[in-house]
């Protein structure tokens, strides 16, 4: 052994990060696929790692005219198993919720993946998202788990007021047309 070596504290157990539910969601994501004609979309990225998602959000039509709108969220994306599983679990968890119920879910889950909320054992989980607790032991991976939740938070705040009603100025877009960029076009030259 090296002279004067110090044994650092123990490595957190990888099993806590890669719980079965998480691995399962990453391999068989729910709510995945682009929704044509969705009303709101928002891209989310971890620029340093390249994790990348787009959330597609629609409002459910409701039989009662004055009921609060309920959302449905789907996604497309690529990235590590934590970011993709977290997105899959989120879409499942917030679908059919009102905007403010979804917001409450976002802050609850933030407590889970940052480790502020109390931890439950793998057998006592009520919801899949609770499996994100293990992420808190791996600080560099928190941003992977947080990506969809932060993205949804932004989407909701941009388009809905604090009462969960659509902002009058929020324009639901037609068919996710690529946003027209006014930036000057780069003159790129290629050989083909």
């Amino acid at each position: 052994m090296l002279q004067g070596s110090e044994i650092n504290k123990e490595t957190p157990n990888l099993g806590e990060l890669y719980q079965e539910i998480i691995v399962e969601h990453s391999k068989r994501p729910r709510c995945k696929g682009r929704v044509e004609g969705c009303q709101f979309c928002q891209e989310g990225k971890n620029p340093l790692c390249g994790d990348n998602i787009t959330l597609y959000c629609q409002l459910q039509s409701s039989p009662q005219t004055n009921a609060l709108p309920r959302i449905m969220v789907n996604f497309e994306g690529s990235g590590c198993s934590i970011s993709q599983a977290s997105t899959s679990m989120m879409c499942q968890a917030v679908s059919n919720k009102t905007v403010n119920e979804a917001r409450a879910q976002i802050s609850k889950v933030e407590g889970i993946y940052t480790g502020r909320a109390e931890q439950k054992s793998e057998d006592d989980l009520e919801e899949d998202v609770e499996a994100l607790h293990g992420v808190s032991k791996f600080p560099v991976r928190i941003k992977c788990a947080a990506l969809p939740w932060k993205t949804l938070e932004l989407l909701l705040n941009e388009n809905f007021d604090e009462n969960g009603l659509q902002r009058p100025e929020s324009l639901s877009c037609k068919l996710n047309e690529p946003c027209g960029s006014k930036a000057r076009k780069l003159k790129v030259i290629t050989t083909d």
Partner: protein
Amino acid sequence: MKKIGASLRLEFPVFAHNVRRCADGVERPLCYLDSAVSTHKPQKVIDKIVEFMSRDYGSVHRGAYQLSVRASDQYEAARARVARFIGSGVRAEQVVFTRGTTESLNLLAHGLTETRLTADKRIVIPAIEHHANFVPWQQAALKADCEIAYIPMCGTSGSDLRLDLNAAAKLITPNTSIVSLAHVGNVLGQINPVQDIAALAKRVGALVILDCAQSMTCFSENPFDWGVDAIAFSGHKLYGPTGIGVLVLRPELLTELPPLLTGGGMISNVTLEESTWTTGTAKLEAGTPPITEAVGLAAALDWLDDVGRSRIHEHASSLASKFAEKLEKIPGIQLFYPGTGNETIVSFRHAALHAHDLATILDGSNVAMRAGHHCAWPLVRQLGVDALVRASFAAYSDEDDIEQAIEAIKEATYLLK
């Protein structure tokens, strides 16, 4: 001759401080395979920095007192040391200290936008560059509204992972004013044909800029002998401290370049109406420079040349080949490795295991490798993947690192099956 490999680790205190008991109860040494991002520091460099700060520290060029004189002497001696490191014929007056390669390249792109770029001109860079040698030129082209052309690779696997010289010859047209490229690629580890590309650029009178961030640890040829006009590199990849980089310029180019930063130390006169710049390297070194860091860099260069750059290259590239050979045998692994035997870097991915997951699992076995796009997003996209894991080898790497890493990768693929 100085030691190399595992026995050299005794000179690097970081290894003694980072032995770790892993979750399986096994104590594992630090297997550091991320030296392409940044190398660790030998005790000699650490001692020199502590000694300088303890005994000789003062700000430079301003004080009449002894300490300032001593610090100035050491700062200027560091500049001369850098010149000598690059090659005979390079003078200290050509060496500008910056905070790193990124700042050096930004300084060039910013200055040349003013002095050379107009809408009819062209910039040529490889499409696979590190963002540090990509984004500044892309932004310069936007600002000047000029053309930018990207040199492609010959292909996306194996020995095709190299710059396409035929394409380069077509793209470097008479209206090209700047050609900028890396000497060694930071993801594929490929050694670019700098002399050929420089010759193409010289034919049309274009400036040639070389990003030597990855090459200075292994190569001692003087790029100015190949017709290169400016080179950039960082201290922290050369066993030296962070916060110090170098920009070396042909004397005419130093005269031509306007400053990126203005302020103290770079003026010849300031009135309420206007300011004029001083000449020489000082013009490009506004503010209090990284004095301690420059002294540390000089110590690192001494250390590096003691070990020997070509020896490090031979050692690290042979380890990379052995690692690639073993890695390739693991089911599901795809290599992005040109395999000429000269690379010191091996990038790879696993078919079913995302690069970030793999890197986290490897950390569980005290194996430090980087996962992601490695600041070369356009390259990673061209390879048709979203992230890669990269192993890079250095003077203190050895066969035990290969074993520990291969073992950990095998376990990882098993864990997430």
